[in-house]
């Protein structure tokens, strides 16, 4: 297919390569395959795409502006609503960023719990990606098989955080709830079962000739181009670039666990698909290792800022060994709210989710910028789609795994 890509330079204005008029079609914002409210203005020459123009912003809620009038703790629930299919990962990424800014270190147990939930979020995110990607290409049974497992994971989220989607599970300096024995046992049983389930999905599509024809050599993007376009996550690794925030800038418990970063070679839809399928197994093994290694201890840093107060961070209280003596010291040597700026990234299912904070020394972010992977990925969509066919746009959107909540913020 890629061989007969039309020469885009010949196309001028509204005329096709042979002078005929182009067929303009607006795909979205209400369209079953655009994964939300993405709008694509496609100009077609027959069924071949000559020009693809994405329009975003239909879900813009001004999260960055909202956060400026909230404390760091209050802004955390906003991150649930970015990538709403793997909100745990956003919670963790946000907490890490704020902790870096405030100079807090989460306790070890909290780090392990966070790594577990982050990888669980990666599983939920990738499961939904596989479900919708396969459904877009027409394999609708994979969709429901994926949701079967996703449901199990969401139940576990509900057990520890009290909500299935908008979890708000982490907090600055740790996590809000400790894990239970039941949770650990269910999760461990799940990880034992999960590889066989992945095999099930693969049986349906991996070697299927229709699937191969629909994904091989479609949406090819070279390594250099992919880096230049700013792609991250599995979409970048499918092109063969070894860039994973978990390895490059390790956070939480990632330095202590053993995992590999799957890398593709060609950069087509199939490679990106394979990358994510391998990540299923890697995440699975990370979860297992974390459960096995998880130490006991506190789950929230002692000097974590209070949820409520903003200008006066609570002081660390130390008491004499005998409380009755009434000697209580207030330690005031910490500098939480300094002036400065940090950029901290974490690897969420979609790619690199970065938070750029500018602090002016108060308990609210002066400026919070969210570097959302989906936003950049949709920006790269025209480079992937032009020259292919209408049906390939669907495959490409699916393979980039975009979520519009995160894109529009």
């Amino acid at each position: 297919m890629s061989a007969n890509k039309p020469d885009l330079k010949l196309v001028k204005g509204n005329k096709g390569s042979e002078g005929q008029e182009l067929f303009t079609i607006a795909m979205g914002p209400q369209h079953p395959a655009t994964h939300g409210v993405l709008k694509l203005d496609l100009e077609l020459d027959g069924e071949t795409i000559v020009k693809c123009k994405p329009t975003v912003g239909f879900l813009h809620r001004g999260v960055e502006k909202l956060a400026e009038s909230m404390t760091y703790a209050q802004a955390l629930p906003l991150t649930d609503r970015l990538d709403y299919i793997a909100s745990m990962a956003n919670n963790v990424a946000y907490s890490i960023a704020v902790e870096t800014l405030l100079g807090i270190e989460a306790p070890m147990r909290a780090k392990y719990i966070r790594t577990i939930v982050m990888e669980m979020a990666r599983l939920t995110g990738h499961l939904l990606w596989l479900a919708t990607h396969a459904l877009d290409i027409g394999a609708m049974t994979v969709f429901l098989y994926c949701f079967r497992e996703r449901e199990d994971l969401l139940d576990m989220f509900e057990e520890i955080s009290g909500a299935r989607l908008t979890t708000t599970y982490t907090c600055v300096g740790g996590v809000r709830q400790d894990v239970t024995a039941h949770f650990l046992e269910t999760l461990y049983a799940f990880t034992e079962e999960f590889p066989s389930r992945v095999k099930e999905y693969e049986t349906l599509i991996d070697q299927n000739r229709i699937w191969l024809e629909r994904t091989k050599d479609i949406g090819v993007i070279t390594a250099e181009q992919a880096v230049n376009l700013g792609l991250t996550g599995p979409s970048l690794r499918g092109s063969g670039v070894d860039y994973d925030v978990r390895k490059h800038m390790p956070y939480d418990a990632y330095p202590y666990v053993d995992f590999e970063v799957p890398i593709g070679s060609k950069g087509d839809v199939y490679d990106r698909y394979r990358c994510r399928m391998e990540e299923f197994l890697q995440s699975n093994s990370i979860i297992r290792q974390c459960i096995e290694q998880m130490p006991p201890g506190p789950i929230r840093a002692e000097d974590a800022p209070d949820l409520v107060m903003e200008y006066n961070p609570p002081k660390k209280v130390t008491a004499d060994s005998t409380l009755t003596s009434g000697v209580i010291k207030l330690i005031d040597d910490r500098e939480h709210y300094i002036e400065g700026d940090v950029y901290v990234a974490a690897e969420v299912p979609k790619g690199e989710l970065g938070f750029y904070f500018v602090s002016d020394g108060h308990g609210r972010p002066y400026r919070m910028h969210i570097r959302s992977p989906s936003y950049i990925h949709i920006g790269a969509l025209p480079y992937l789609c032009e020259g292919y066919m209408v049906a390939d746009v669907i495959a490409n959107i699916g393979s980039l795994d975009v979520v519009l909540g995160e894109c529009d913020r």
Partner: protein
Amino acid sequence: MGLLEIANLIQERYPDQVIKIVTCRGQAAVILKKDKILEICRWLHDDPSLQFNHLADLCGVDYLDKCDVRFEVVYNLYSIPNKKRIRLRAQVPEDDCQIDSVTPIWLGANWHERECYDLFGIKFNGHPDLRRILLPEDWEGHPLRKDYPLDGGGKNWRGYDEVIEKAKRLSKYDFYNKYEDPTKKTGLKDVSK
């Protein structure tokens, strides 16, 4: 390479461009003048020993009364082969609110810059398609500026009147009508009579 090494390299090469080097929580940032930003970025991108090939983030910041120069455009660069990070902060004054676009170097900067233009009103010279991106084309003002009215300036959004009018017109098809007792389940009822 240490924390400040790359920042110092930039200062060595462009001493007249660098205003200040700041660090915060183990991260280094170089505050620059905006004039040669494209050149500096190209050098950082192309130099074989630096290779800052990944533009992680680009955004604007509005320091309304906190700084002499009102705006800053922040470039978070990452070098995937060298695993190094540097942050450039180019100062953009309010009266000359424009800066060179880095899209010739990183294609991915395209949408970042559009967003920055949309929400801060900073113009990027040489950008291929500088339009609003997150907000509607006919939006007035740039919401992430600190002096943007938080209550929307007392104006209703475009199309507000039409929506209200339509809601009133269609309210007769509501199952419950808010002008009546909500506990009374009236079903389809025409209130215009």
